[in-house]
């Protein structure tokens, strides 16, 4: 049902084309149906009476119908393909726009991988089904009904053969298809399973070898392999049955038509030509039924895909932009967290609990805390990747949920924990947040980010190619390019989420020194592990299990805050051999 609704909804704009397909296929099918009748007349009126002139005349007529049939069929294909591909294009477009409108939480609930599959593969399935439907499903019923009408026209006395054979074929093919459907579903699961196992084995190769788990993995694979082989054999067994059975039915019907038709001919109730035409009609009907039933097999897979697409398209975004009123957009970049509480859906306790702090323009605020304390979540609230459940985040007194994404992007620049670059060139990546930046500006940003040297050494320099994710530059280089990218955008608020981790201390220090100058009057918020990075911050926010347990300068906190002291001491014990 979902499939049907989805397909119909998306085919609606192209209903003229769909109508054209139906009309053209109608003509084409009628032409195809008319041909046996002409052939019958050639036998009855031409051959039986030895009238060669009539044979020629009917032959010409047949040729014309042939041409009509081919022309309409091709035109129908044209509109069918156009419609199906347009439907696919439109669904893809809507999914893409839908994803764009969704909040980061909505998206993580679905999963990036699944989103991609839905936008690509799933649409493909639905689109192919629409195509097949337009190409065959329309002509099949026409062929069926037309064939029956034409057959009846030839001789009603044999019509019972149609009424018997069509349902029999229906039942038998339907039975086979019904046997196949669950097997197909199982098959798909098992294909997925064996692919997953394979993928894990390739990805985890070193670990498997290190733990000598080859026998274990081989067993896991063997199970998956045996399962898929088993299902394949079952599917194959049904398949090899299908064709012979269908052929047998067709041949039995042929024989029956000849036998009973013979009696009617003998009784003078029908002509030989009519018999021959009738036979062809019956076969045409049966073949049409068969084709239609085969087509049905494509449906279950498409249904699953359509459901997944529909679910996505039906997802309500949790990220609406509230009315801001007359307030102007932020100009200074004063970030304020007011009693912010945030938890991931389904989690037992919030990640952030009643967090409040202020980050003033021109100052640096550091966020510290242990693994899982909620640091990354906290900074993600600033560019409004999430909305807090309670409290609010404002920039210059403008709540972030009253700004649209572009307005926020103009104010906040984030360097993520996981440095990610897009495929393209270094320049295209750096201009990501500011398309109009000049080359000079790019180089300036690179200088600050301590990335100018390695970019200069690269072939093509700014135009050097970057692969997706930035996998062709090292982790440290990636991180510096991400920092430069944020600098090029010149935001009011800089957010660095553990962005210096892949840098050695010397580079880190140089970078921070340069950064202090470059960021000037902007607000800087830094998440960091290293105390050396934190120590110079104007304000340090100490997070523990999502709660702010202390705020102040390094000295103040060292004096007064137990958690902070622990963090620093742990670093001393781990790092601090330097005496």
């Amino acid at each position, binding site marked *: 049902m979902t499939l049907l609704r989805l397909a119909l909804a998306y085919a609606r704009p192209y209903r003229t084309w769909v109508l054209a397909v139906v009309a053209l296929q109608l003509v084409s099918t009628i032409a195809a149906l008319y041909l046996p009748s002409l052939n019958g007349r050639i036998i009855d009126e031409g051959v039986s009476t030895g009238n060669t002139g009539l044979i020629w005349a009917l032959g010409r007529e047949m040729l014309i119908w042939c041409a009509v049939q081919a022309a309409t069929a091709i035109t129908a294909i044209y509109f069918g393909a156009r419609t199906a591909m347009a439907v696919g294009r439109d669904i893809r477009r809507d999914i893409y726009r839908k994803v764009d409108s969704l909040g980061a939480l909505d998206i993580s609930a679905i999963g990036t991988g699944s989103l991609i599959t839905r936008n690509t593969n799933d649409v493909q399935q639905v689109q192919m089904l629409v195509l097949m439907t337009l190409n065959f499903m329309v002509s099949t019923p026409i062929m069926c009904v037309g064939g029956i009408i034409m057959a009846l026209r030839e001789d009603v006395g044999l019509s019972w053969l149609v009424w018997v054979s069509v349902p029999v074929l229906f039942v038998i093919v339907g039975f086979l298809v019904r046997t196949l459907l669950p097997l197909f579903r199982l098959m798909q699961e098992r294909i997925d399973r064996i692919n997953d196992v394979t993928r894990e084995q390739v990805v985890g190769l070193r670990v498997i070898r290190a733990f000598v788990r080859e026998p274990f993995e081989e067993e896991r694979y063997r199970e998956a392999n045996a399962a898929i082989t088993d299902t394949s054999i079952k599917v194959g067994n049904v398949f090899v049955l299908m064709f012979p059975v269908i052929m047998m039915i067709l041949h039995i019907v042929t*024989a029956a038509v000849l036998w009973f038709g013979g009696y009617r001919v003998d009784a003078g109730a029908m002509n030989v030509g009519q018999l021959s035409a009738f036979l062809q009609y019956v076969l045409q009907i049966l073949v049409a039924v068969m084709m239609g039933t085969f087509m049905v097999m494509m449906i279950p897979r498409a249904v699953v895909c359509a459901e997944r697409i529909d679910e996505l398209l039906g997802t309500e975004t949790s990220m609406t932009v509230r009315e801001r009123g007359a307030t102007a957009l932020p100009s200074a970049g004063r970030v304020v967290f007011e009693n912010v509480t945030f938890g991931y859906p389904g989690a037992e306790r919030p990640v952030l609990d009643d967090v409040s702090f202020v980050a003033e323009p021109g100052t640096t605020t550091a966020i510290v805390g242990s693994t899982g304390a909620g640091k990354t979540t906290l900074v993600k609230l600033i560019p409004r990747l999430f909305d807090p459940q309670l409290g609010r985040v404002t920039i210059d007194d403008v709540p972030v949920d009253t700004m649209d994404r572009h307005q926020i992007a103009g104010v906040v620049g984030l360097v993520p924990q996981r440095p990610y670059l897009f495929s393209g060139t270094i320049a295209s990546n750096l201009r990501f947040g500011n398309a109009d930046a000049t080359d000079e500006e790019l180089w300036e940003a690179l200088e600050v980010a301590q990335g100018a040297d390695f970019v200069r050494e690269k072939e093509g320099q700014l135009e050097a190619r970057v692969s997706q994710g930035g996998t062709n530059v090292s982790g440290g280089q990636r991180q510096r390019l991400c920092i430069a990218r944020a600098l090029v955008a010149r935001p009011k608020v800089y957010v660095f989420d553990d962005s210096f981790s892949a840098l050695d201390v010397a580079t880190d220090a140089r970078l921070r020194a340069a950064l202090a100058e470059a960021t000037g009057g902007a607000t800087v918020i830094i998440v960091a592990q290293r105390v050396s990075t934190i120590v110079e911050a104007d304000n340090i926010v100490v997070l523990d299990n999502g709660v702010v347990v202390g705020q102040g300068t390094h000295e103040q906190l060292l004096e007064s805050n137990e958690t902070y002291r622990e963090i620093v001491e742990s670093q001393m014990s781990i790092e601090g051999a330097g005496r």
Partner: protein
Amino acid sequence: MSTREEPTMTEPEENPTGPAVETSEASAAVGPDAAPEEEAFIPGADDLGAFGEGAAPRKPKNFWPSARRLFGLLAPHKVKFVVVVALVAASVVLTVIAPRVLGQAMDVIFDGAIGRALDDFAGVPIEQVVEILRSQGQDDLADMLAGTANVIPGVGIDFSRLGQLILTVLGMYVVASVLMWAQGYILNRIVMSVIYDLRKRIEEKLHRLPLSYFDTRQRGDLMSRVTNDVDNMQQALQQAFSQLVQSALQVIGIAVMMFIVSWQLALLALIALPLSAIIAGVVGSRSQKLFTEQWKSTGQLNGHIEESYSGLELVRVFGRDKEMLEVFDERNERLFTSSFGAQFVSGMIMPLMQFVNYLQYVLIAVAGGLRVASGTLTIGDATAFIQYSREFSQPLGQIAGMANMLISGVASAERTFELLDAEEEEPETATASLPPRTDGHVEFDDVSFSYSADTPLIENLSFSVQPGQTVAIVGPTGAGKTTLVNLVMRFYELDGGRILLDGVDTRQLSRAELRGQVGMVLQDTWLFDGSIMENIRYGRLDATDEEVIAAAEATMVDRFVRQLPEGYDTQVSAEGGSISAGERQLITIARAFLANPSLLILDEATSSVDTRTELLVQHAMSALRTDRTSFVIAHRLSTIRDADTILMMENGRIVERGTHEELLEARGAYYDLYMTQFLGGHVEPEDAALVGAPVGLGAQPDAEGTSPEAPAEPEQG
């Protein structure tokens, strides 16, 4: 009278693996043949489960050798295979002869009908009737009657003969159907058993290939060989092959029958042959090109989708959605145009072929009618001929389709064979064995190793580690730290020298035995799809839940697992999921902890863990390390400082060794490294205690290189 009206869509429907029609486009992008400009898409593609769908059409490099080898796979089933071919041949012969018999039945009816029509001449011999008709001026009718020897004026249809013929035909078809079924049944089993073995061989091969094989190849490509290509081969063997044999035999058989029935009409029917060939050639190659175009644009669009979803947060933070949308729309539109073209042109083939088919049908109907009218052909032969001519074009179309599938299958086979033929690890030559618990005495004796011959990495390295010692390996990126520990694991084979474990050359040990003694925690965390419990238990498969939890407690895993709603049953996967990078590392540490090995290797095992947690883990680790030898590669100083021996590496050589204090006093490379780091921190010496700056002792401006030495960072936000 035809039995099959349409050139049936055999390929898609008869595909026992299910999805065939729908998926070829999507997967093309993943395929290794993707054009260079799609390169960007490939790395991500293998994370999507996008592989495992149909396969891109491929062109084999050496068709015949690979084809021979592909069919060589059937060799163990030779006898059954011969049976299959025999069954196909027999059933084809029957189905080819049947229409002829059917034609005879038609003749009986026709003769009877004419005889009935000549009631007026009842009892008059047919020759006389012909003469009478001629005298009446009905020459055409007379001609026709002259050609039909079996018309007896006044006598209707000979039902006993008709019944006989019909039963014969039925019998032939039933037998043919049974034979077809039998061959399909046997072939299905043969092919599936061949494919099962093939998959098994490939998987086993994966475990025997040297790591260097994987270092130099794209993961997506490799997986595609194991999945898509095997599927493709299955299809080729299962369908293409028997269809091809069947169709070829049919074409020959039908051609022969047509010539037997009427060589004049046969020549006429053959006109369709070149016509069909031209259509298949012209339209087919055009659609091939369009399909390539479609695959390309599919790849580009999917690449863009993949990329914009993977970098979604950044797209938002930088407010780039509009630009991404523009690119999407442009590529989406391009895909529409190209796929529409491909579908239209390829869809044209069928109606065009049908047109040729009808054309032939008309020609034969007319010519046949004329010949019947002139008495040179019976009506039965004419109908038989019509059926033959229609059945003629169908196997031809199938041959074309199957040939494509077969070519594609052979190309896949080629790629699979490449994998199977790849050079394996040196075979096991285990001549020695170790006691169940080794002391952990490790000795490098004049070891040389390089990844590629022209860039030597480790040369003539010798050192030994006493049992129970902790060895820290420090040095800049590319110094060979990870390589060194990989050599202990025998992940790579030495170019020279030897490594001894408790005095036994590791090459004399089986890899399993050697690695069984070693616990390794790698820099890139690997978790498989499964629960946290299962992932930890991977370290020791027979561990009880209590033992797993004990290991988890010792490695600080328990602490965060308890906070997860589903606890140890929480599902994790290779891609990430609900737990952070640091937590993933802790799980892999727990795994090694559980394995309880005699030798421990920690390669940047705690790089994503915060310092406080690390401290706690370190306590556990030191418990793990007591009484066993450990190799530690780390940034962080405390580990290094506490080590019994520090190996300072540069360019594959150990330039210094000793304790932290010794090396500092020596004022050599270690001291320099240490001081650079230290001074780089811009911290006054007296603050050092508080600040504890030196972190990057490894002096790595780039913590992760792209060399095999430093595996890529785990994808984790």
